[in-house]
C-alpha cells in the first residue's frame, strides 16, 4: 500500500509550488508594508516582481528567505513554513537558496575568491584545490577571469561586483535564486549581460527564480510571469496589493491605469500630487 502511494506523493511533491506565500502581512513599527500577499512560485518558474520604489518588493523577497519574519501569514519553502524552522534547519534550507543583493553585498574585508568560496567553507568539506576549481568555474560562468580572485571588491566595477555576487549565490547550486534589483545602477549593456546570465542559469540548472526589479526590460526578458505590487499606503480600501499577476505579454493589455503608468514609465498621479504639495 505504501509503495503504491510513493510515486503519487513524489508527483504531488513535484507539483507543489517551491515557494508559497499565504496571507502575508509585514509591518515595520506602525507602518504596514505588505498586506495580505498571496503568491506561489512553481518549480522551474521565473517570476518577476515589479513595482515602484517603496512598494515592498525587497521586503517580500527577504521574507521568502526568512530574513524578515512575517507579522502574520506564512512563507513556505518546499512545503516547510519558515517560521517553524529552528536556526540550524533554517541554515540548511538556506543552502538551497541563492540570493543576489542589490549592491552585491560582497564582504569588503575578503578577496573575490574568498567571497565566492565563503558558502563552500561554511557548508562543504572540500580541499583548498577543489574549492579553488569550483570558484574559478563559477567565476568563468559569469564571464570573469581567473585573475580576479585576488582582488578586493572595492577594486571592481558595479557590473563585476554584481557578477561576483551571482557567482557566490550560485556556488552551492541552489534550487531557488532570489534576485534583488539585479540590473539597478548598471549600463544597458551590462544590464543585458546580467539578464542573459539569469536566463542561462535558469536554462542550465533548471533553477526557480524570483527577480525583483523595476526595470521592465529585465521583467520582459527573464520572466515567465510578472507580479506587480503597489504601495499599501496608496491602495484603495479593500484592494489587493497585487495589481497584476500574469504573463509578461499580458501586462500591456492590463486595464488598470496604475499598471499601465508603471509599464510606460509615466509619472501620472505622482505629478499631480507633487503639484498639489508645491501649491500647499
Amino acid at each position: 500500500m505504501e509503495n503504491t502511494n510513493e510515486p503519487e506523493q513524489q508527483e504531488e511533491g513535484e507539483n507543489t509550488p517551491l515557494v508559497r506565500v499565504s496571507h502575508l502581512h509585514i509591518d515595520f513599527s506602525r507602518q504596514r508594508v505588505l498586506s495580505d500577499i498571496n503568491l506561489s512560485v512553481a518549480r522551474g518558474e521565473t517570476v518577476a516582481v515589479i513595482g515602484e520604489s517603496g512598494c515592498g518588493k525587497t521586503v517580500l523577497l527577504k521574507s521568502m528567505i526568512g530574513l524578515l519574519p512575517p507579522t502574520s501569514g506564512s512563507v513556505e519553502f518546499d512545503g516547510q513554513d519558515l517560521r517553524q524552522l529552528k536556526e540550524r534547519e533554517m541554515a540548511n534550507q538556506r543552502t538551497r537558496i541563492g540570493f543576489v543583493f542589490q549592491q552585491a553585498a560582497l564582504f569588503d574585508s575578503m578577496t573575490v575568491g574568498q567571497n565566492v568560496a565563503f558558502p563552500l567553507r561554511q557548508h562543504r568539506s572540500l580541499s583548498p584545490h577543489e574549492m579553488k576549481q569550483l570558484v574559478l568555474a563559477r567565476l568563468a560562468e559569469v564571464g570573469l577571469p581567473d585573475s580576479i580572485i585576488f582582488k578586493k571588491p572595492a577594486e571592481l566595477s558595479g557590473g563585476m561586483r554584481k557578477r561576483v555576487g551571482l557567482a557566490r549565490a550560485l556556488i552551492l547550486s541552489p534550487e531557488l535564486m532570489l534576485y534583488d534589483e539585479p540590473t539597478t545602477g548598471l549600463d544597458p549593456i551590462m544590464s543585458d549581460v546580467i539578464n542573459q546570465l539569469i536566463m542561462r542559469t535558469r536554462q542550465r540548472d533548471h533553477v526557480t527564480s524570483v527577480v525583483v526589479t523595476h526595470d521592465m526590460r529585465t521583467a520582459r526578458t527573464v520572466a515567465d510571469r510578472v507580479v506587480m505590487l503597489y504601495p499599501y499606503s496608496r491602495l484603495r480600501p479593500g484592494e489587493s496589493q497585487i495589481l497584476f499577476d500574469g504573463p509578461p505579454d499580458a501586462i500591456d493589455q492590463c486595464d488598470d491605469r496604475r499598471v499601465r503608468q508603471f509599464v510606460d514609465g509615466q509619472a501620472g498621479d505622482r505629478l499631480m500630487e507633487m503639484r498639489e504639495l508645491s501649491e500647499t
Partner: protein
Amino acid sequence: MATHTETISDEPASKLRWLEDWVAGWGAAAIQCVVSVGDITLFTFRTFAWMFTRWPRREAVLANFNQVGVLSLPVVAVTGTFIGMVLAVQSYSQFKMLGMESRLGAVINMTLIRELGPVLAATMLAGRVGSAMAAELGTMRVTEQIDALDIMGANPIHYLVAPRFLACLLLIPTLTIMADFMGVFGGYFYSVTILGIDRHHFWYNSQQFVGHWDLFSGVFKSFFFGAVIGMVGCYRGFNCSPGAEGVGRAATASFVYSFVLILFLDLVLNILIETAHNSLWPDANPVF
C-alpha cells in the same frame, strides 16, 4: 480617492490632543527604553551562548585580537604615560605645601592603578575600539553584508560579534595593565627627573601604599569595562539605521553609551570592591 494612510490606525482628533501626544510621547519613549534593554540583554545572551557552544573561527579571533590589542598598544601606552605625568604635575604643589612630596609615588600609583588607569584606558578604548566596531558592523548592516552572512548560513553573532566581544573582554584588561605600567613610568619619570623627587622614596612609598588588592580591583573592573565596550559597540553596529548618517550615529552612540556605562559600572564596582575589602579585612588601616 480614498487611500490607506501611512500608519495602520488613525488617532481620533481631540481637544486634549497635546496632552495625548505628550503622554503618548513619554509612553513610546518608555516602551522603546524597555525594548532596547530587552534587546541588548538578548543580544548578550546570544553572544555568550555562541561563545560557549561553538568557539569562534581562529582567523576571526586573531584578526580581532590584532585590531583590539596590538593596534591599540601605542595609543594606550601614550595615554598611560601622560596620565602618570599629569598626576605628578597636579599632586606635586599640594604635597609640597604639606612637606610630603616624597609620598608622590604613593598617590600617583595608587590613583593610577585603582582608578584612572582602568577608567581612562577604557574611555580611550571605547573611542578607538568600540566606535570602530560600531562603524564597521554598521556599514556591514547598511550594505547588507550581515544579511548576506545570515543567508549563507553563517550566524552573524557567532561570526562577527563573538570574536570582537572576546577580544574586548580579554585584551582590554591586558591593555589596562599596560596603561598602568606606562602611567607609573610616566609619573616616575616626571617626579624624579623633572621635579627632583628622591628615587628611593618614590618607590618605597609606592610599595608601602599600593598593594595587590589595588591592582586586582583595577584589573577586575577592566573586565567589565571591556565587556561593555565590546557589547555596546557590536549592538549599536548591528542595529544601525540606514545610510551614512546611521553609521555615524551608531559610532557616536557606541562611545557615549559605553562612556556612561563605564562611569556607572565604576561607581557600582567600587562600592562592591570596598564592601568586599572591608568584609575580608575589617581591621585594615586606611591608606593615608
